[in-house]
């Protein structure tokens, strides 16, 4: 490489580079934002300005004229990680006192043989959401609905804190039998995710229940209620869509798997 200076007069390069870039950018903007949307057969745009706004991604907010009513109450609870703050000792204590009313069905420490849900160690958001749904009527039950009627929001938070504070039932699964397909893999071709992805064994999602050690009768009845639509407090029909696709045998196997206890 010989030591001569870089050629002066690079203005032509600058001018040419900028001109070409501007030309390409302008052409593609005109084609993409105006010509293509208008040229479309049955173009929905009344004016060029309309087309440009739409191509830029601006959304026209339309007044909501008609709301499809499902014909039943849906859950109004917004589930998030922050829906319940860390429980205080006072809250747990209050919950413990309030829980005295629950012991008849749910056991003295949240575990019973009455085929009701075991509440000991249950995730607090799950309990809180169900209580709120019972209260609003999104979920109905001849016994639970009247029991909930007089509970305040704080009462429900305290109850959730108390039961979450109790020890959780440990999973117990016979090592001889593999976990059922429906629990571990779901049924991908039927759009059924694995139970374990949300309810324990693989993963946890906020608002879902810990199912290990749950009564098999309760699990079966609830899955059937979801499938028939009798229970409908699941957000966006998540569980109804799953339960509708499950076979009776799969429901039995999933219930039996989670119910396993020594």
């Amino acid at each position, binding site marked *: *490489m*010989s030591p001569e200076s870089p050629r002066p007069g690079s203005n032509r390069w600058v001018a040419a580079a900028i001109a070409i870039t501007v030309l390409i950018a302008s052409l593609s903007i005109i084609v993409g934002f105006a010509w293509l949307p208008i040229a479309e057969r049955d173009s929905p745009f009344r004016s060029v300005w309309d087309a440009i706004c*739409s*191509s830029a*991604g601006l959304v026209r907010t339309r007044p909501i004229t008609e709301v499809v009513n499902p014909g039943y109450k849906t859950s109004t609870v917004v589930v*998030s990680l922050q829906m319940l703050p860390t429980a205080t000792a006072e809250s747990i204590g209050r919950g413990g006192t309030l829980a005295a009313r629950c012991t008849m069905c749910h056991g003295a420490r949240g575990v019973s043989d009455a085929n009701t849900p075991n509440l000991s160690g249950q995730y607090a958001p799950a309990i809180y959401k169900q209580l709120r749904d019972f209260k609003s009527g999104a979920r109905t039950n001849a016994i639970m609905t009247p029991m909930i009627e007089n509970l305040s929001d704080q009462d429900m938070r305290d109850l959730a804190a108390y039961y979450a504070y109790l020890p959780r039932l440990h999973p117990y699964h016979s090592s001889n039998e593999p976990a059922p397909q429906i629990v571990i*893999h779901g049924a*991908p071709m039927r759009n059924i995710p694995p139970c374990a992805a949300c309810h324990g064994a693989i993963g*946890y999602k906020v608002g879902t229940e810990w199912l290990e050690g749950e009564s098999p009768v309760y699990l079966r009845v609830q899955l059937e209620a979801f499938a028939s639509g009798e229970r409908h407090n699941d957000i966006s029909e998540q569980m109804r869509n799953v339960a509708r696709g499950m076979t009776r045998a799969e429901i039995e196997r999933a219930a039996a798997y989670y119910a396993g206890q020594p």
Partner: protein
Amino acid sequence: MLHHKRLVLAHFWLAFGAFGLALLLGAWQMWVRSPLHPWIDNPEHYYRSVTAHGTTMGYVFPTLVAMAFGYAVTELSLKRSLIGIRWAWAGWILVALGTVTAIVPVSLGLSSVLYTFYPPMIGNPFYYIGLVLVVVGSWIWVALMVVNVYAWKRANPEVPVPLPMYASVVGSLLWGWTAVGAALELVFQILPASLGLTHTIDAGLARVFFSWTLHAIVYFWLMPAYIAYYTIVPRAIGGRLFSDSMARLAFALFLVVAMPIGIHHLFGDPQVGAGFKFVHSVFTALVAIPTFLTVFTITASVEIAARLRGGKGALGWLKALPWQNPMMLAVAFSFVMLGFGGAGGLINMSYQLDQSIHNTQWVTGHFHLIFAGAIVVMYFAIAYDLWPHLTGRALADMGMIRAQLWTWFIGMIVLTFPWHWVGILGMPRRMAFYDYSNSALSPEALSVVASVIGGAILVVSGALFITVLVRGHLAPRLEPPEYRFSVAVHPPRTVPAALNGFGLWVGLMLTLTVINYGFPIFHLMFRSDTSVPIVHIDASR
């Protein structure tokens, strides 16, 4: 000569060590989701592995190779010691520390969000902090490349910047700017959510930010390969570079058109207007210009080598090429894979054609063919070429080197061609298991098995690569001849200032970023109804 061999070697070895481990994960993933393996019991393990594989192969490995090669090129082409050696080591330490910081939570199952982050999924903050450290470490390299080239220009105002250095600085500037998109996403959106400071995230905006990084990062990965095409291949096979100016123009154009095109990754995203998708599609198509300039120039350079070796005829010269030379093999394999990968890329960048393969295995097949194929095979070639100068010992296992390059080429074709095919059949990507017994999916089974075989061949090839390099350290000492880059047919005596500096091209890159990304970003930032609750990913809950 190389003044700081240990610095370059430290980068290369960290890169290749990480590459070796991530390669095993990749092969494992191919196997467990194939019909040869029963459905994996814990899909989370699959996503954990995909996250580690992608993070290592996408961020750590190519960044370290680019850094190593950049430092080597600086010393070898400017013929002086690197300025800022302490900073360079600080950069290496940051990348190493960041890699460990990121991979530990991934290994623990706390951040199985895949390397593209996918908000509103949110993992452990250390994963993102680690990646920020990797990027900051690489930005030190960017700064050092710029400092070194400008210091040299000041000292040599009469001489054009050597082509290898010019191209390396272009690569570093491209990375410096393109990494900003993901950095904005991490620092302002994902990290606050991960640290519990915010509870919602605008996933659409995050995807737009990520697309800013996502496509140009591929060209950053590509840069060392292209630099090797132009500045090493012609010399290594006994030829001349066809045109020095053409090379500079190609690199300068990459700086301009590689950046403002990422929204072609968002063709399926509703938050970006169709007009911007079209404009990005047009600019993606423009990448063909520097690509074809390169294909033409390198083919012409190779032809020169063949004719110098007595090659005759319109195509008969191909026989005269030194096919025993690893660099010859590497560039040929790289071009074949770049050709097929580029052709497939035409489908991806077309707004209409993309619909047929969007989010299918076609896309994974495509970027493996381009990156793991065309680009990584040149990384191998670069390592083989530099190794004797780094270790002061010869690489004697020519047979093993050729076997390594052949197996990588064959393995990559066997891996990616069926992968493209199952994508056309509609097989979605990012799934831990597939029900191949279903009649809708069973036609995909055989092709997936073929890909597993391809993956296994690649593992063998990767092992050969590491073996060659390790044996290189154990060979007898020798004094290697002075390192040379390619010489052009007409070595440049004068170079237009525009092709000796970077200002014009960086200016165009920044302007096009504003034009192509400005409105989508600000539009989403100022809308109040685009955020969704975050979803924490944590296997231990």
